[in-house]
Structures are given as structure tokens and as C-alpha cells.
């Protein structure tokens, strides 16, 4: 086996890449596509159920005021800024920046969770009341699950950073965390419109 063949030497290529160049980014896109189709189907189910009845929401259901949910949405959108700055810090390989911005992100997120809890408690129906309650609560619940999962992931990453890890895996994770966070916030906009705004539009 004498080997004298041309070779494509890639030794000098980097081992980390971000955004569209990175397989991890595409993995996140896949995850986001799955979640997005789930939420799209929730919305479709919501309107399917709405279409089937004459009065929507059903009599006796109080739709919450728009104020708190809207403020909450504002804070959520705001929380994307520290997420973005954290991911930029990750690209620069700047552990202090990652820590700082992630912590701010987590703080803002926790505030929104508290406000949400307040909103939930103000609803006078539950998932067991009727089909309206069921669909609204499953949307709220699923999004909350995603949201909390995102926060927990950030907390774990911060813990890793505090423990002194700042290698390529952690940097990739911070980056990954940022775009999943954008998604979780972005998908809330249509959900907010469906749950809090659409009931204000009278059904014919």
C-alpha cells in the first residue's frame, strides 16, 4: 500500500463555528421548527374549536385585561437584548460578559414568570372548565414549560461559567441558548395575540 495521493489538508481549519456554519445552529433550527409546528397546531386547534361554537369565549368566562400581559410581553422582548449580548460575548470568548448578560437575562425572565403567575391566577376558569379553558391552558402550559426550560438551561450555563468552565462547549451552549431564547419569546407574540387579543374580537 504505497500512498502517494493528493490530499485536502484541513488541519488549519477552526473547530468552532457559529450561526449557519455550525451544525449546532442547524440543530437549534430543527428544534425550533418542531416547536413552531406544535404551537401552530395549537393555534389551529384553538380556531377550530372557536369555529364550532356560537359564543366564544363561552359565557361566564372572563378574558383578562390586556395591561399585565402586554407589559409582560414588553419585558420578554427586552430580555432578548442581554441574550444577544451574551451570545456576542460567547463569540468573543469573553467569560465575564457571558456571565453578566446571562444573569440579567435570567433576572428579567424570572420577573416575567412572576407576572404570568399573577395573570394565570386572575383567570376565572381552568383547563377542566370547558374546551376553551382546556385549549387556553394547554397553550399557556406548554409555553411556560418551554420558557422555564430555557431559564433552567441559562441557570445551568451560568453555573458552569461560575465553576470556571468557558471552553468551546460552553461558548456554543451560550450561543445555542440565545437563539432558542429568541424563539421562545418570538412565539409568544402570536400566542399572546390569540389568547389575550383575539377574544376581544366579537364572533360575528
Amino acid at each position: 500500500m504505497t500512498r502517494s495521493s493528493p490530499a485536502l489538508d484541513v488541519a488549519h481549519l477552526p473547530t468552532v463555528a457559529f450561526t449557519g456554519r455550525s451544525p449546532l445552529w442547524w440543530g437549534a433550527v430543527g428544534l425550533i421548527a418542531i416547536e413552531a409546528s406544535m404551537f401552530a397546531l395549537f393555534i389551529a386547534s384553538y380556531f377550530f374549536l372557536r369555529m364550532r361554537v356560537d359564543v366564544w369565549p363561552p359565557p361566564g368566562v372572563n378574558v383578562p385585561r390586556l395591561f399585565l400581559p402586554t407589559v409582560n410581553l414588553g419585558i420578554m422582548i427586552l430580555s432578548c437584548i442581554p441574550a444577544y449580548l451574551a451570545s456576542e460575548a460567547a463569540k468573543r470568548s469573553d467569560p465575564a460578559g457571558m456571565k453578566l448578560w446571562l444573569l440579567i437575562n435570567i433576572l428579567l425572565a424570572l420577573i416575567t414568570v412572576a407576572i404570568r403567575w399573577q395573570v394565570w391566577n386572575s383567570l376565572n376558569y381552568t383547563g377542566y372548565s370547558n374546551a376553551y379553558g382546556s385549549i387556553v391552558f394547554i397553550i399557556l402550559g406548554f409555553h411556560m414549560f418551554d420558557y422555564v426550560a430555557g431559564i433552567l438551561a441559562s441557570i445551568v450555563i451560568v453555573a458552569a461559567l461560575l465553576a470556571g468552565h468557558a471552553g468551546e462547549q460552553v461558548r456554543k451552549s451560550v450561543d445555542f441558548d440565545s437563539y432558542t431564547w429568541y424563539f421562545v419569546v418570538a412565539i409568544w407574540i402570536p400566542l399572546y395575540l390569540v389568547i389575550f387579543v383575539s377574544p376581544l374580537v366579537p364572533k360575528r
Partner: protein
Amino acid sequence: MQSALLEPKRVQLPEASASEDLAELERAWSNPRGIIGWLSHVDHQSIGKRYIVTAFIFLLFGGVEALLIRLQLARPENKFLGPDLYNQIFTMHGTTMMFLFAVPVMEGMGIYLVPLMIGTRNVPFPRLNSFGYYLFVIGGIFLYAGFLLNIGPDAGWFSYVPLAGPAFSPGKRVDFWAQMITFTEFSGLIAAVELIVTVFKMRAPGMSLDRIPLFVWGMLVQSFMVVFAMPAVMIASTFLLMDRTLGTHFFNPAEGGDPLMWQHIFWFFGHPEVYIIFIPALGIVSSIVTAFTRKSIFGYTAMVLSLVATAFIGFGLWVHHMFATGLPPLGASFFTSASMMIAIPSGVQIFCWLATLRNGTVRITVPLLFVFGFVFIFVLGGLTGVMVASVPFDLQAHDTFFVVAHFHYVLIGGSVFPLLGAIHYWFPKMTGRMMSETLGKITFWVVFIGFNLTFFPMHLLGLKGMPRRVYTYQPNLGWGALNLVATVGAVIIAIGGAIFIANVIISYKSGEMANGNPWGASTLEWGTTSPPPHYNFLYLPTVNGREALWSRSDDDPVVTGVRTDRRESLSTSILDARPDHRYPLAGPSIWPFITALAVTFGFIGSVFKGSLIFYGAGLSLVALIGWFWPRPSHNEQPERVEKGATESNDQVVARS
């Protein structure tokens, strides 16, 4: 900057360096030993083979159930199985075949073959991949454990509410069904994302989009369909489970819910599901036809476009399962046209294969025989499919044995025949040994004859008015003779299955040894040894044509500079596959298995008590931290070799 990279340098690869690389690769890619080690495997070959073997075991179970169904229906008023057991068995049969066999086996083929075919070392997220496998196998075991404990689901594989709802399906039977869906869909989605990213980012340099093998295109398109279709069934099963265990009202018409919503969501998944099973099979057929005609498939672009078109149209057909629910006629005619339209891309593929066969030089081998069987059976099933797309005829055929015949022609013809061909075709690659051609030919003819004997009479039964899912029928209806013929056919298929299993076992033990490329085929997986080493290729290949191995010359470069002392591969750009960066791959880990157990605890627990899902989530979080917590060995330093954990080098070298 990067395009300069494509200019290869001529370097000497002295034997010494090659064997040094070889030794390092062997060490970096060896799998740990023992039970824990076995559960830690993350290489795509192990996971792919596990998927395939597990799925075939489920095929065996599903087949036995089919046989029991046929025995019960062999004669009128048969008392062999009572209605309760019969309903469980036909539900288990459908569920097993759809969720535990057809989709996983195709995904297993993809996970095994795609990285080899596109010339990389592993899928990009190896641990996630093994996590997906564990969820699948646990979901399957869960369902069958339930069945053996008399908790077998009994509302049909599409569990129409209200029959499957809390009031008409007491106990945990349908809950087990619904939660099994969650397990298998998780695993399906994971495999889909793996495959998409593998195909997008891990292709060998030079394998631009228009050089991707058709099988890989098939897996890519299938994975996209999975990503958009499977969330629907997860949602549907979650709704169902919540209605059943928590008392929500998604499907309760009394409180504003709607039973038809179940059908819409389920079939929004359920129809694409058929194409999820069938599109990889199209890829298999293309591979086999190429290999045995020694010719590129005629009309590569048309083939790819028709795959994509099938996927798109596949999402617009779901309502044709609901023609009898009393839809507005305008809507129905839209879905009729869409359902007929999907025959066009399928037709294009068939015509292109036939053109290839006609123009090429055909070697008739067992895999190709299965392709002929595929064309014969699938065309017939496709034509009956066009028939039932017509609303008026469907109103007669729907939910009768005509439809049973139709979808078995499409699914067995369109998917199982290519799959059996694929096993005969890729067996030498997977095991290093050839399968017996003689036994293979016998398998083909026995299965082919048995299949047609079983399912052709069902068309007539359906037209004579026999509804599906009846556990018995009365003698004066005149269905007895045809049913008996079908049962005889089923027994013949079972004999064919036994011959196939015997062939696999005999060939695995003592088949003729296979060289790297026994068929003289063109795709990259045939460019390495049989079976391939754990790292797939000593040097990652480059590609300069559609039929990679046929267009390859000694002057074509191989990739060097990817680290061999740890698991690493090359990531390339999406469109034209230029080298982009070196991509470190995760090594063996037990954490995916532990995480799967934690998730299992939550999923199974929540069937019995809703709040357990939160405990499961907590456990999963702990497991995930264990999984993802950064370890130095994973990053900059070379992989540590665990003591005594490597396979002995001699062994591996001897094998390769």
C-alpha cells in the same frame, strides 16, 4: 478563502503515517465494554443497527398479531379470539407496524447509511442519537408490557374519540397507547433532526447538493416531513391523554370540544406518515436500481423534485381519510384533486426507474427482484389509491377490506419489499458477509405469492361489503371462501418470513465473506471495508461526481488534517460542500441512557398520576446536567482512554 482549500496538494501519505493514523483512530473510536459500555455506544453504526434489529423484532410481533387476526377471520363465526382480545390485537398490529416498525426501521437505515453515504464519521449529535433510540425501545417495551398485562389498547391504531375517550375506553389501555406515541415520536423527531443536520453540514467535500445520492435525498425529505408532521400526533395524543386522565374537554362535544378535531389533527400527521414510511423506500429502490443496472438513475433532477413534491402534496391530503364524516362538497373535491395529484410524482419516479432499467445492463439479484416486486405491488396499490381518492367511490370503499387491501399494497409493496431488498443489498456492508442468493430468491417468491394471495382477495371482500375491524362475520354473507384464501396467504407470508430470518442467521454465521464493494455499486459506503470501522473511513473521501465511486480516480484527493486522536469530523457548507471547520464529536456516554430512564419515569408515571410528570422533569433536568456538564476531556485535550475499555487493536485491524 475557503475555496483555495479545494486545491488539493499532492502529499505523500507514507505507510507509516497511515498506520499511525489508523491506530489513533481505532483508539479514539473504540467503544467501551461491559453492559454500561454497551449502553454508552453513540456511534451511528451501533445505533442504526440497533434501530433496525429492534424494529424487525417488532415486525415479528406485529406479524404474529396479523396471523392471529387472519386465523380468527378464516371462517365465519369463529370463536378463536373474542371481541375484546381481537380488538386489542388489531390495534396492537396497526400501532406496532406504524410506530414501532415502519418509521423506526427507515430511520435506522438512515442513521446507519447516511453518514457512510455522505462520507463522514458520525452524526453531529451522537449522544442525542442514542437517547432517541432508548426512547423508542422503551416506548415499544412499554406498549408490549401493557399488552401482556391486559392493558393492550383496543380502540384501533387511530383511536377515534369518543370511543377512545374516557367514557368508552375505561382503564389504562388507551393511555398506554397515547403515551407510547409520545415516546416514539420523540425518538422520530430526534432522528429526523440528526439526519437533516448530517446531510446539511457533514457531507464530504465536493458532494454538492446535486451530487447527493437519491437515498440520502429520500431520508432528507422524509426527515423534513417528520419535523412538520409528528408534532401533530404528539399534540393529538397529549390532548387525548389529558382528556382521559385529567378530565379536560378537547374532544367533549358537551363542553365545546369536538370529536372531529381529533380526526383532523391525527390525519394531519397520519397521511404524511404514509409518505414518511414510503419516501426512504423510494431512495432504497433508486440505490438498488443504480447498482444493478450500472447506470445513474434516469432524470436525477426529476427524481429529487418529485420527492419534494410528494412531501408537499402529502401534507394536503389528510381529509381524504374523512370523506365519510360529511364534509362540505367543495372541500372534499379539493382533497380529491390533491389526492389524485400525488400520483403524478409517484408516476414520475416509476417511469424514471423503468427507463433506467430499460437503458441499463441488468443483473438480476435478490435486491433487484424485490424491486420488481415493489413495482408490481406498489403500482397496483397506487392505482387503488387513485380510486379511493374519488369521494363517491371512497364512500363505498372507506373502512372496508378494500381499503385494508389498498394500504397493505402500498405499505408492504411500497415499503417492506424495498426494505427486504435493502437488507439483502446492504447486509454485506453491515456484517461483512453475503446473504444467500438462493434462500433470498425463495424468500422473494414465497413472500410475493403469499402477499398477493392474502391481500388481493381483500379488494373483493371490501367490494362485497365486508367492513374492516370486524372480529367475525356471518356465514350467509358469502365472505368465507375469500377470507380463507387470505388466511392461507398469510400463513405463506409467515413461511417466507421464517425463511428470511433463517437466511439472515445462517448468512451472519457462515455466509460468504464480502469485500468492500461486492456489488460494484457507486455510493461512498461501498468505498470502505465491510463492515466499516467505527470511524467509517481512514481518510474522509472527497467527491467529484454524482456516482461517487464510479467517477473516482486515483488522482482524487482524500481529506487529511482531521484529528485522529479524538473523535472529530469535517463540517462543510450546505450548498456546495466546501470544507468549513473541523467538528469535534462527542464520545461514548451513559448519560443519554440515564436521561432516557428519567424521561421514562415522568412519561409512564404521568399515565397513572399527572403530577409525576413534574418529578420526571426534575429527574430529567438532573440527568441533562450530568449529560451536558462540560468536561475537560471533551474539549481541548485529547480523549482519555479508559482503562481496559478499548477493544484490542489486533482484533479490529484483523477485521478491517
